[in-house]
């Protein structure tokens, strides 16, 4: 058996493969549900209704998708330039923490406060990623290791901050940061739900990233630098500057994820702000095949699986691990599907 690269990708396969992958992953997850002793079809129905079945369910799914869109975009822009940013989780927390700290100082109407806080969050994420990327281009330090390990350092730093200099004195001893001022809270999109303006911002950023990649000099140069550093250098692409630019964009997006989550959902920073949004962003980016518009839909899918599986586990007494397993299966089947979209099999 041999694999031959398709010269011309078949449109039906390119679009059909992800759909098939998601379907297969749900079927496989069905086997696990059966193994857990629950009726499979009822469980599926429960997942679906818990994710989309009511206004509350739908808004919860959308709310959950917002940070995944940002971290998914962060991973997508980095991976496209072959910058392996595994540190979105840390950049997210750094962004959120910077927002909380800045909130102490700022007194301005929401039209000013909200954009300023988002930019502060982006800046914090940028700084956190520029360091490892600079170390890579300058000294050849593997950024997979440095960005990953920075996540743990940042999380400990957050603990230090919210139990120390940023501690909320009115929180009855709970480790959480000072609240973000009301002027910095994102307005709700739907009454009596958690869904906030962040959804619009996230979709806007996805479109912006798409436009940058498709139409700008920076977009082309970053792709060239990722695909072939020697080829790009020969053509005069400033490699260091380009990769640092990618670091700014990617780290900035992850920082915004934290800022928006803190400003939209919680209103303060705690160490449970993110249940691994940074890592799930990698899955989202891969499911989207690194396409920024695809990230929107991939984030919705992952969010729906998580929210739906939560609901199902409550009503069916199936462990919530099913959600993690389903998302992981989706990633694996997606990677296999992408392979078959790019290669054909011959005997």
């Amino acid at each position, binding site marked *: 058996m041999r694999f031959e690269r398709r010269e011309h990708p078949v449109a039906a396969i390119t679009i059909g493969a992800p759909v098939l992958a998601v379907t297969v992953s749900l079927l496989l997850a069905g086997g696990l549900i059966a193994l857990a002793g629950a009726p499979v079809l009822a469980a599926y129905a429960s997942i679906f209704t818990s994710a989309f079945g009511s206004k509350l369910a739908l808004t919860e799914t959308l709310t959950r998708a917002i940070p995944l869109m940002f971290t998914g975009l962060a991973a997508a822009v980095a991976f496209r330039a072959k910058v392996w940013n595994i540190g979105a989780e840390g950049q997210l927390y750094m962004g959120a923490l910077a927002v909380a700290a800045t909130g102490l100082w700022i007194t301005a109407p929401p039209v000013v406060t909200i954009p300023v806080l988002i930019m502060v969050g982006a800046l914090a994420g940028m700084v956190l990623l520029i360091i490892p990327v600079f170390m890579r281009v300058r000294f050849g330090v593997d950024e997979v290791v440095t960005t990953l390990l920075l996540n743990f350092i940042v999380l400990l730093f957050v603990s230090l901050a919210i139990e120390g200099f940023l501690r909320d004195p009115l929180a009855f001893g709970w480790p959480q940061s000072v609240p973000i001022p009301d002027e910095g809270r994102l307005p709700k999109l739907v009454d009596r739900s958690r869904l906030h303006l962040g959804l619009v911002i996230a979709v806007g950023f996805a479109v912006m990233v798409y436009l940058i990649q498709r139409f*700008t*000099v920076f977009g*082309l140069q970053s792709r*060239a630098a990722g695909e*072939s550093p020697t080829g*790009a250098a*020969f*053509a*005069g692409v400033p490699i260091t500057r380009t990769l640092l630019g990618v670091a700014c964009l990617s780290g900035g997006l992850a920082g915004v994820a934290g800022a928006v989550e803190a400003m939209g959902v919680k209103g303060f920073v705690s160490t449970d702000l993110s249940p691994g949004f940074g890592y799930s962003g990698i899955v989202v980016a891969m499911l989207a095949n690194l396409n920024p518009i695809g990230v929107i839909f991939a984030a919705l899918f992952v969010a729906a699986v998580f929210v739906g599986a939560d609901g199902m586990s409550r009503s069916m007494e199936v462990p919530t691990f099913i959600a993690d397993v389903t998302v992981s299966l989706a990633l694996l089947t997606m990677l296999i599907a992408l392979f078959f979209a790019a290669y054909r099999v011959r005997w």
Partner: protein
Amino acid sequence: MLRPPALALKGISKSFGPITANADISISLQTGEVIALLGENGAGKTTLMNILFGHYMPDAGSVEIEGKPLTLGKPRNAIAMGVGMVHQHFSLAPNLTVLENIMTGTEPLFSLRSKTDAARAKLTELAERFGLLVDPDAFVSDLSVGEQQRVEILKALFNDCRILILDEPTAVLTQPEAEQLFRLLRVMATEGLSIIFISHKLHEVMNGADRVVVLKAGRLVAERQTSETDKAELAELMVGHQVKRPTRGKTVPGPVVMKAVDVTLMQDGHKRLANVNFELHENEVLSIIGVSGNGQAQLAQVLSGLAKPSSGTIEVLGHLSTALTPAELTELGVARIPEDRNTEGAIGALSLWQNAILQRISDPRFSKRGIIRGKAAETYTQEILDNFDVRGGTPQTEARLLSGGNLQKLILGRNLSENPRILIAAQPARGLDEGAIAEVHRRLLEARGAGAGILLISEELEETMLLADRVQAIVNGRLSPPVATDKLDSRQLGFMMAGEWGALEHAI
């Protein structure tokens, strides 16, 4: 009874989608015979040999070895029947010794004892019988390319092969190494081996083979005994029409456009370039010729703005070039053709239009305030494709889908369409077939006629004699004084490449 041929290919056909790689090809090979499989790039030579060795399954046809049918589709069967293949890109592990490399795959994976002594004895016997001298305990990473090829051949012989296939064996060799290889093949043939080698170089086919099989567009178009044919006929059979080689007319060299003074380059503790001096004029081709690995790659890097010399200066059109980036050099009118078109000259995953404009992306024609002008870039690329006869793609096609010759024409096109003042061409015709080589050479001479100063970095005598007005040899990072090619013959040039220029009479 008549002895069956060592190898018989019968009616082999193979197509990839709409492309026919092989159409009804039948070849027979006698014991002790050397045949050359000649054809342009893409004629189907490699596909045919990959079918024989089991890498591909043919759509139709069969193979017989010494009268017995070979089950196709598995290299293991081919090896067991005595077929050995030496690929163009070697498959040796650099961190193992010669002996270890040769034994790899010959022993069961789970046996605890390795029969090293027996293997060593067999290897020594083979090496002596065929004159393939290599140290069995040397690490492959320490061997020259020519020696590595010998190890590959020994590996095939170690597996008791009686039919040896070599895919473009001379592509990576220097002239003397190539000559040695063909002497070796001759010895092996007299020892009873049957040999097929793939080539698109006419002179080595004439020298190395008993018989030539010419493929063109997947079909067998001719078979000739080398004693009954000549290069001209083979070239015509291979290309389908007569190849017109360009000729160099007279020009009057203009003022100096590029000047290197005492350029020295240290890399990894080695002196790669030592006090290099040259002057390049308008309207001329200056060739820097040498055997591979004598500093050509480093010279190209320094001149292309990718490496900074440790000392010395390079002046380009009145600017100090060491202070310039590749993008600034391009803007100044310095065109560059890199030695390796696949890793430096183009980015396979990007489209042709992206590859065409990447080095001029800041040019106001192609971008404005950071936004790419896609339409303009595509029009520009389409013009290159038309004017330079680049086939097999539109501006939207990914570069990896172009053949080597067409990719090289695109690289030439994006440089020459801007009427450069200086062209640095590092082995511009490397790995191309006869038709494409003639085309590249014609374009270079055209640019020279239009006033460009061309610095040609070459390893080919023929190319240098054809194109260059003046030549300097490069040996161990040192350059000889310049000599006018009119006053040289190939033999003298060969001496220069060997580093003997003490008594040069015609230095200018």
